[in-house]
């Protein structure tokens, strides 16, 4: 199981246009970084919590699947989990 997951993460990291990958745990500590920008972790963590809270407030049986933030330069994709947060920064136009 873990080998598959590692492979998946590797594929994501080597995918076209992907600049960085960060795994954040529930407290906000980063465990896997392949990008130089670490500040993403704390800020995105808060934003994801807020987004999730919003979604669940609207319907408690619903839950946030993922969050995309598209900016001029690149796109930040956040997929939350119960304990972890996976953040991928991709440059989609490449």
């Amino acid at each position, binding site marked *: 199981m873990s080998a598959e997951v590692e492979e*998946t*993460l590797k594929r994501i990291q080597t995918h076209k246009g992907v600049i960085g990958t960060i795994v954040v745990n529930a407290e906000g500590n980063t465990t896997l970084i392949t990008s130089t920008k670490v500040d993403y972790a704390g800020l995105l963590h808060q934003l994801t919590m807020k987004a999730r809270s919003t979604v669940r407030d609207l319907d408690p049986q619903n839950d946030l*699947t993922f969050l*995309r933030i598209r900016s001029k330069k690149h796109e930040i*994709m956040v*997929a939350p*989990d119960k304990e972890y947060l996976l953040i991928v920064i*991709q440059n989609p136009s490449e």
Partner: protein
Amino acid sequence: STSATNEKTNMLLMSVWSCFFGQDEEDGTEMGEGDEWMQGKTLIKPLDQLDLTEAELKEEFTRILTANNPHAPQNIVRYSFKERSYKPISSVDQLAVHFVLEGNLLHQDSDEARRQRAKQGGEDAGDVEEGGGEERADSVESKAGKKEQKITNQFNFSERASQTLNNPLRERGCQTEPPPRANFSATANQWEIYDVYLEVLQKQEKNKEKAKAVPKKDDDKGKKKMMLVETQSDDITKVAKVAKIIERMVNQNTFDDIAQDFKYFEDASDEYREQEGTLLPLWKFQYDKAKRLSVTALCWNESYKDLFAVGLGSYDFTKQGRGMLVFYSLKNSTFPEYIYPTTSGILCLDIHKHLPYLVAVGFYDGCVAVYNLKEETLQPIYKSTAKSGKHTDPVWQVKWQKDDMDNNHNFFSVSSDGRVVSWTLVKNELVFTDIIKLSLAGAVSEGPEGVQLPIMACGTSFDFHKQIDYLFLVGTEEGKIHKCSKAYSSQFLETYNAHNMAVDAVKWNHFHTKVFISCSSDWTVKIWDHTIKTPMFTFDLNASVGDVAWSPYSSTVFAAVTTDGKVHTFDLSINKYEAICQQPVVAKKKTKLTHIEFNPVYPIIIVGDDRGYVTSLKLSPNLRKKPKEKKGQELPKGPEVEIAKMEKLLSLLREPENSNA
């Protein structure tokens, strides 16, 4: 001197006594000195008086007067605890009280006097003050209104004071460690409450289950092991699901234009092209490890419309080796969702219609297997072995059937060894039943000892009727198509001399119950009405046809793939003689297309080739035409339309035939 005084007192006493009692004797002795007034009387002796001599009469008796109380007892004895015996008291109280009179005078300073004065003071205050007056001015005044002043003794008054020892004050304090503090903040949202309720519910259910499963103790050990394993591989596996989502998102970004095309693009130029349509290439699916293999089977998943299965193996007799079962999702074209490597090349597969996780696979070495996608293992859950009736030749087609009466899943397989076998999944086993044996009519061969063995025809494809459960068609290597029934195991219902070479595919129409299509390596595609022995339509495609498929949305549309890399799409309601689209879909010219499948919902097709690639293409609007509604009439929906459409076509064909005949 005492004796003298005693004598005198005695005389007095005696004289007094004699006066009263007439005692003479003693008087007689002392009379001469003092008793003049007593001489007149004569002494009378009482009768019981003692007679004493004169010497005795002169004897002096000393009498002592003491202050002792004659009534006081002199022999009082008290118990002494010290000596533990009765001891006489030495001194006895001699006081004799003769008279007591209690007075009614009160000292003016005593409590009682004050009380009385207070009582009187209320009644006649003036009197008291007046009466107090001159003589006792000092004392009364001092009492009446003022506070008492201490009247000190003028003579020997001395003020004495003493200081007691004041205990030093001590302050005692105690300090405890403050309880540890932690800051806690939380929000009470609707969903937090909902979550808590869910947890409680789950716990309750678990408890119920535990209560039921208490006698099972062996599971506990297993569970403990499971728990340990879980905690070890916690970190990475928890990210699994999330990683998958992210991968899909990343892919979506990369292939964004394709996704947009898939969803929204409709070729506008189709309006200008009268009848023709085009196929727009979308994603390309390939897997590194499957490069040498060719796609031998394709199947869409009925429940998950974006998931399809690809069977990889080889059609080449000489290059037989391993195979692979790979599942792709449209959401991720770069990497398969599931990968199952197999020892033998796969030739066919089928996904169960209702249970999307059950996949039946037929191999080149004659085995059939069933995979369960839910399981973590890469091994099939069932596999036929030589003992359990596996085919002796490659299995060309497998198809799931409805559950049998015992609610067991079952599927059919057809193979070159001429058998159509039904496999039933009973608990842990795969139980086989020969349904029919395809024997070449009339052909027998000489077996050992002169026994005549019927030569088996090689089945290469089959298809089950959509509505009539027992009816199915089998295509053979000889080019014949047999219409069979599950009930009859030795006889065919019908035989069609379809092709000159092996029948690669035979498929019933999705809507019209009588129509089926067949294709063969003899370059032709033929459409039949199963009641008529000759084909309704025949199309020559200039190359060996690998596969043909009806479209799920129209009864008159079908597509075929050829070994020259082209996809031919036909719509019989538009053009009965030609394809409305003939398009090469692979880059390299030498690539042969092997299979084609329509997606049940989306207007796309997937095409497999012999290099292990699967290409997905979108059908342009012209290829998906529905019958035009007449003005004012509601568009009739449902399969009846399609059936009617087909029927119309067929009737056109039949009429000239009838007229000819």
